[in-house]
């Protein structure tokens, strides 16, 4: 019996101790009419060997296309040591460190994580993770509404330069509490938040302004001005940032005069493989004075009976298991293992290593953009500096181009036409540090063929790997 260690003798002895004569009797408090028969629709068990075969075949089926797709999930190098350590049983199979004395490994690691995240973002405190970047944004919004005592409206300014999926997630999560996300447009030339659009809300009651850096178009926002503007108008500034970018860009805690109040984002670039979208982790940092409004686990350093330093869950009175319906959030299980990987990732890369990685992404994306823009009628849509993504306009529909590229086993980027119809035939491309010159040249030449072929024949839809 897979994973069940009971021998026939064990079973008999145990039943005798309990005083019943069959295992089934243990279910005798369950009304008979509720009991189900064998669930024929569920397949029979298979040994590991056969499941391996199945999964290997399926994993192979998806190929390993050359990826220039970013849009919130980035293909980065992860040092081999990261996951060899992260999957050690002691990390992998422990749970939330409720018994601090028997969980100092996880606790200290989380404290180190909090230290690294505050260093990276320039904020005072960090929690120990939320589910992902998008839900972290939703939690940041809820937190801002609670924290901004001067604001009563439950309204938030949410720029369209923010990831469309993030905006949808935030909406799904906060709308039930009657919170309204008011969209702010972008400047068609620069791809940044449209400051005149913003200005129309000056003086109105909003709990916060959300400021992405870089924004969804890859473009760098004028974060100092935006933060100042939010503060001047009685709003909190919620930064939503790429943590890798933070290694080279001005940290959220230093934006404007006083810095952002809350900083959140997607942790995936720090050691999480693409893996179909998860598990990743959301991070959330804030000013010390807001810490009691922060959702999620927080680890504090303290001392034991002998005065020796140790680590423990702290400020638990914010959490659902203590505060129940008055908790700052319902989150319980978080993304601990991903944070374990991220912490080890940051430690191995080092601050300088992350800077190099970030700079390489920036450089490669510029090279990619130049290479593609050398093709006829391909051009960059927004002017000004980006981090590691760029919006390019194509001479054919984005959908057709991306399909045709996929048939050549190249993931060419993100189709912007659904979320930004005004940008029709534009795609968002990304070249991380992993996409070298050869890869870029491959993309360029494939796109050249696709553009050349477009008028002649409809594109081939099946992949060719």
């Amino acid at each position: 019996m897979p994973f069940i260690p009971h021998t026939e003798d064990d079973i008999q002895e145990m039943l005798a101790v309990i005083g019943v004569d069959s295992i089934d009797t243990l279910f005798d408090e369950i009304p008979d009419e509720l009991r189900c028969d064998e669930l024929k629709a569920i397949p029979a068990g298979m040994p590991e060997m056969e499941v391996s075969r199945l999964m290997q075949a399926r994993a192979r089926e998806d190929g390993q296309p050359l990826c220039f797709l970013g849009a919130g999930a980035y293909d980065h190098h992860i040092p081999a040591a990261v996951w060899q350590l992260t999957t050690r049983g002691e990390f992998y199979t422990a749970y939330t460190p409720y018994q601090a004395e028997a969980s100092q490994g996880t606790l200290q690691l989380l404290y180190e994580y909090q230290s690294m995240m505050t260093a990276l973002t320039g904020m005072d405190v960090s929690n120990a993770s939320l589910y992902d970047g998008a839900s972290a944004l939703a939690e940041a919004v809820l937190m801002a509404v609670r924290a901004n005592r001067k604001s009563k409206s439950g309204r938030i300014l949410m720029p369209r330069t923010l990831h469309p999926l993030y905006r949808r997630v935030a909406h799904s999560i906060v709308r039930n509490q009657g919170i309204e996300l008011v969209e702010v447009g972008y400047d068609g030339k620069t791809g940044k938040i449209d400051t005149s659009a913003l200005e129309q809300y000056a003086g109105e009651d909003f709990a916060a302004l959300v400021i992405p850096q870089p924004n969804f178009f890859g473009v760098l926002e004028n974060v100092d001005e935006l933060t100042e503007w939010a503060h001047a108008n009685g709003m909190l500034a919620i930064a939503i940032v790429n943590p890798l970018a933070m290694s080279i860009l001005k940290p959220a805690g230093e934006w404007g005069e006083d810095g952002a109040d809350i900083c959140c984002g997607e942790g995936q670039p720090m050691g999480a493989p693409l893996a179909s979208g998860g598990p990743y982790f959301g991070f959330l940092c804030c000013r010390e004075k807001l810490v009691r409004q922060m959702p999620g686990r927080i680890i504090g350093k303290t001392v034991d009976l002998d005065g020796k330093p140790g680590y423990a869950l702290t400020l638990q009175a914010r959490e659902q298991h203590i505060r129940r319906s008055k908790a700052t959030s319902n989150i319980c299980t978080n993304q601990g293992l991903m944070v374990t990987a991220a912490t080890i990732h940051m430690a191995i890369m080092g601050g300088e290593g992350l800077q190099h990685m970030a700079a390489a992404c920036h450089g490669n994306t510029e090279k990619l953009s130049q290479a593609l823009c050398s093709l006829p009628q391909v051009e960059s849509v927004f002017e000004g500096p980006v981090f590691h993504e760029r919006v390019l306009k194509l001479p054919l529909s984005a959908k057709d181009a991306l399909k045709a590229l996929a048939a050549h086993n190249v993931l060419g980027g993100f189709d912007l036409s659904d979320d930004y119809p005004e940008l029709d035939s534009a795609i968002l491309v990304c070249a991380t540090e992993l996409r070298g010159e050869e890869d870029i040249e491959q993309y360029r030449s494939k796109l050249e063929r696709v553009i050349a072929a477009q008028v002649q024949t409809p594109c081939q839809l099946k992949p060719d790997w």
Partner: protein
Amino acid sequence: MIYEHSRTGRRATAQTNPEMAELSDIPDALLRKRPAGLPEVSEMQAVRHYTRLSQKNFSIDTHFYPLGSCTMKYNPRACNSLASLPGFLSRHPLAPDTHSQGFMACMYDLQETLKHVTGMHDVSLSPAAGAQGEFAGVAMIRAYHEARGDTARSEILVPDAAHGTNPASAVMCGYKAREIPTGRDGDIDLDALKQALGPQTAGIMLTNPSTVGVFERRIKEIAGLVHEAGGLLYYDGANLNAILGKVRPGDMGFDVIHMNLHKTFSTPHGGGGPGAGPVGVSQRLAPYLPVPMVDYDGTDYVWLTEKERPESIGRLSAFAGNAGVLLRAYVYARLLGREGMRRVAEFSSLNANYLLKRLMEVGFDAAYPERRASHEFILTLKKQAKELGVNTMDFAKRMLDYGVHAPTTYFPLLVPECLLVEPTETEAKEDLDSFVEIMRTIKQEAETQPDLVKQAPHTMPVRRLDDVRAARELDLAWKGDS
């Protein structure tokens, strides 16, 4: 602390090129002025530090871990290696369907398996954990009422024994959470329930078996009452392990359910997560399920998104939830198959009932002695606390010295000095017997040398920690040597 190994200018990894690419096109005002204060250590120092740190943890792979309500059972290693196959790890979440059929097939199969094993009509895999599943479930209840124009319903009922996430989730969905007391026999107080029900009732959140470790026997009656009042029933699947393949929440009358795959489907707990909290619904709630979901059109697997499912409560994560966790659960489901699932319920119940009986024999008090245990049970150390001044926390800490992780303490809140014990089906009889011996020993110690227990633990990397100081003198991040 990793920072203690850090030195300026140390750069002993082989990860990146020694030269850094240009950033000159980015205006100075947008750049960092000082490097972020991250550690600069050698690769070996990092490996050594985190290897040693890991050794300070208790975990399933090293210790018996009967943490009630958390289902700390063996996490098969095959789930890890198969979910980590290069093809799966490198798949971009927005990859086109042509490059996703293998992954989507797994997701589709998993949806189907979860549907059948819970008796629900439809399943969405996207919630990232139980609590997010709860949120999704309650949001669907809300969407359902709203779609019917029934907007006066403002309350979600939760038993006083419920997990804290239940009331917290209700509130996140804009509801008031109203508590229903638990009867002396562990079942819900039916009269109180009847009184609480009304036109303001949006629904009720139940766990069955409940968090007090017994099966709610009158579940059908409860379902009838709630439905009659126009409310819906939410099933918190945290305890699904107890009944997997034996009874199905759908058959009990539940309208919506979440499953904690990190419990029942044995994906690793990872020191706090990630988990996965798929939701299943009856037919009438199906339109509201969170997206994305996977469908099969006879030839290909396809995504169902906001477009195809306009009534959906929407999206809870940017992509498709904790995909890697879902893959692990899928592998587990295939390894077990239908017989294996049924055995999960059978042997987790056998272990719990046996352990409870043995512990009662050595003098511990069950909270509900007249009831069958489900896959877990509650002891109350009220007597020991009163007579010996040794409380549940002391017992828990002393257990660490004997090499077992403590059961859940002080939850559920209604049972004083409680220990919620969940041995799970993957522990062998001899390990349960040795746990009984440990409990007997600690009890003796409490009687003869109470200070030994009250000062415990004695053999951990640290002694008992000062939680009050942790909360009062907040130290939440390393600030450099001071």
